């Protein structure tokens, strides 16, 4: 009796599973063809195979998500411990780590036994946020390189930084766990089953960027391959007094910490560079103005890998040639 009941239960379960499977298959055939997106079928969004970011990297930026701010501010993982050991800190927004790239700079620094660390953050971040990081974590590098356009030298923080500042450490850790796990899950799922987008809300995986906890640099595992010319602004601004108040505060803090400030910029479209010379004069710090010749971006804003290589190596050469930098880093003039 019991065996018959068990067999019946098993058959029922098998039938239900088969029906569910058939229904799943039918849906997978029909839904991608439905012309519900203003008369068109949905966009089929399948994730490509991403490169390997390396064992020391964590998921940092994609699909309008930026985890770095909260991770750095709340000292999660080993990033800040590594930042404390750095000789040179690099600050800037997303253009900096994608223009002055780790793969070109760090090997050169290793040759001299110098430790570099990037505190660059995306979302058009300004300098206030990294300044808060420096103060909060009591970072004492020997040199601080600031790479950015004039807007960076005004007071303020990005919306992402604002959220990070308002979070508790517990919230930041939860966010990191959830976003990273969800990302891992989705990249695996949509490698085999595309996401159906009926609303033209394309997944933004043009840039997918991890971040090294060891060097702080962004490590793109997917990047666009465009070639857009960079150039200086056609109408250069002449009055730069607006950038001075915050820059002075920023510089004072670095001086108190015994760090040398070096200004530079990664080329982009319609770039202003006048602030570099102005601040260099006013603050009495060196500035490195890059060459824009033949330098192209991948997406109109961030340098492609090839140009990043040229700009990074050229920057490093000029940087090391600066007497103030050599003094600050204790590099023998004959080196």
């Amino acid at each position, binding site marked *: 009796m019991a065996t018959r009941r068990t067999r019946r239960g098993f058959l029922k379960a098998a039938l239900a599973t088969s*029906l*569910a499977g058939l229904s799943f298959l039918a849906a997978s055939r029909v839904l991608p063809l439905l012309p519900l997106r*203003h008369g068109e079928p949905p966009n089929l969004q399948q994730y490509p195979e991403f490169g390997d970011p390396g064992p020391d990297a964590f998921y940092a930026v994609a699909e309008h998500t930026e985890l770095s701010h909260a991770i750095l501010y709340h000292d999660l993982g080993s990033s800040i411990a590594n930042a404390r050991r750095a000789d040179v800190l690099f600050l800037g927004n997303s253009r900096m780590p994608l223009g002055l790239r780790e793969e070109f700079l760090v090997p050169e620094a290793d040759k001299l036994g110098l430790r570099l660390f990037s505190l660059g953050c995306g979302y058009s971040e300004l300098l206030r946020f990294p300044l808060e990081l420096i103060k909060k974590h009591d970072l004492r590098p020997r040199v601080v390189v600031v790479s950015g356009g004039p807007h960076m030298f005004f007071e303020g923080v990005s919306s992402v930084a604002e959220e990070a500042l308002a979070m508790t450490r517990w919230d930041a850790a939860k966010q990191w766990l959830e976003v990273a796990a969800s990302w891992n*899950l989705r990249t695996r799922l949509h490698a085999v089953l595309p996401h159906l987008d009926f609303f033209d*809300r394309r997944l933004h995986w043009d840039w997918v960027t991890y971040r090294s906890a060891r060097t702080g640099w962004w490590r793109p595992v997917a990047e666009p391959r465009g070639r857009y010319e960079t150039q200086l602004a056609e109408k250069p601004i002449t009055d730069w007094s607006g950038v001075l108040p915050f820059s002075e505060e920023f510089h004072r803090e670095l001086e108190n910490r015994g760090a040398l400030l070096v200004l530079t910029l990664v080329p982009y479209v319609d770039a202003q560079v006048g602030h570099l010379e102005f601040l260099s004069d006013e603050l009495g710090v060196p500035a490195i103005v890059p060459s824009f010749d033949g330098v192209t971006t991948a997406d109109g804003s961030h340098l492609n890998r090839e140009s990043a290589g040229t700009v990074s190596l050229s920057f490093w050469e000029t940087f090391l040639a600066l007497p103030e930098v050599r003094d600050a880093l204790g590099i023998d003039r004959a080196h």
Partner: protein
Amino acid sequence: MSFVSVSFAALYVVAIALRFTAGRSGRSTGFLLALYGLSLVFYGWHVPSYLALILVSTATDYVAARAMEGVAERPRARRAWLLGSLAVNLGLLGSFKYAGLLAETAGSLVALMGFDADTPAVEIVLPIGLSFYTFQSMSYTIDVYRGRLPAERSFWRLGLYVAFFPQLVAGPIVRAGDFLYQLSRPRRPRARVFWMGGYLILRGLFLKMVVADNLGALVDEHWADAAAPDAPPLLAVSMLVFFSCQLFCDFAGYSDIARGLAYQLGFRLPMNFDAPYIATSFREFWRRWHITLSQWMRDYVYVPLGGNRRGPRRALVNLLLVMAVSGLWHGANVTFVLWGVLHGVAAAVERGFGIARDGRALSQPRSLLWFAVVQIVWILSMALFRAENTAQAWAILGNALSGVGVAGAEPDGWAQVVTGWWFTLPVWGLHLRVLLGEKLGVGEARASERAIYAGAMLFALLTLYATPRGFIYFQF
């Protein structure tokens, strides 16, 4: 902790593993204690220090209920214990949920009197689910006071009733009498119950992640546009309908998941939604929408106010009061109070004019007409429920009622709004299925029918989900 999160998935794996090991034989104190522990982790995940609130609430009701039994022969003392317990629970609710509204109102009054006073901004992170578990906790004490329930001897059993994680943050609001006895009943895992639970979880996730979140993205994007002067009426109507579908799928989806989780863990939770959009009267609507809150309001607010016992006029006033309180329960905002009052007036009109009394069959055309009135009032009331302030609500309502059609140029993103209507289909389908069952006698869905739905919902869940957004009722 949200059901749609990796951390919850991890917690639930632990809970299910315990269910099939320690909890396999039923009557397992270890399993129940572990469930209580997991429930506290679930709650503390949001803001760990808020665990103190739920423990204070539980401890208060535990002590008050035991004390009431101890002074069974002294009505005054019993009453004092009850009032003390209510004061603590309502005090917690008031301090966290209504402090901002009270400060704002006080500031406005002071300003009206001609004084120049700075109102301090009150910004407190609202403990999630506060309104749900305080109501649940209070119902226990009141039931003990009324002699309907013996006081629970074990603190942690009462604690598990208050904190049981599937329903902790957004209901259903479970009565102690419907839950506590389940803690002693043997609950052997059964495949049928387990799969039914799985089906409910899948349906809940589908409603939430596919329907509610996709519609929610559209509503978030276009709501302000729909309130702009001269916005096309169709845009305003679309937003109201989308939001009503979002709200239903968000909340009914949560309730489905909660019931499904409870099933799998060996418990039964009451139904919270029963196809409210087929209701042909306001009275019926509230019997189908957020059923456990409606019943709570009836038993613990309407009846103590006198219910129907003090004449028809008083009954109407009571109805209005209950609905206003229900609105206020949803949030410390004038828009919610107005929303409640609107539904109170509608229900009072219905009852006052005898439009849809029990036992009186409405003729078909009249029934259809009143059905249309009920549903239109509900959809229009969404303006108050979703709006940031009354001005925005009136603006959307004005636009929605100003005519028909897309006047002038199509607004930005109109194609997406049109696509959004397709995403309301599951809501109508679900209601149609219930309607067929109720009116045409088509039986409840069999296992084979559910299997077909499950396959399609699973595919949709994996491929059509939108960026997750928090459950709307978490904020209440």
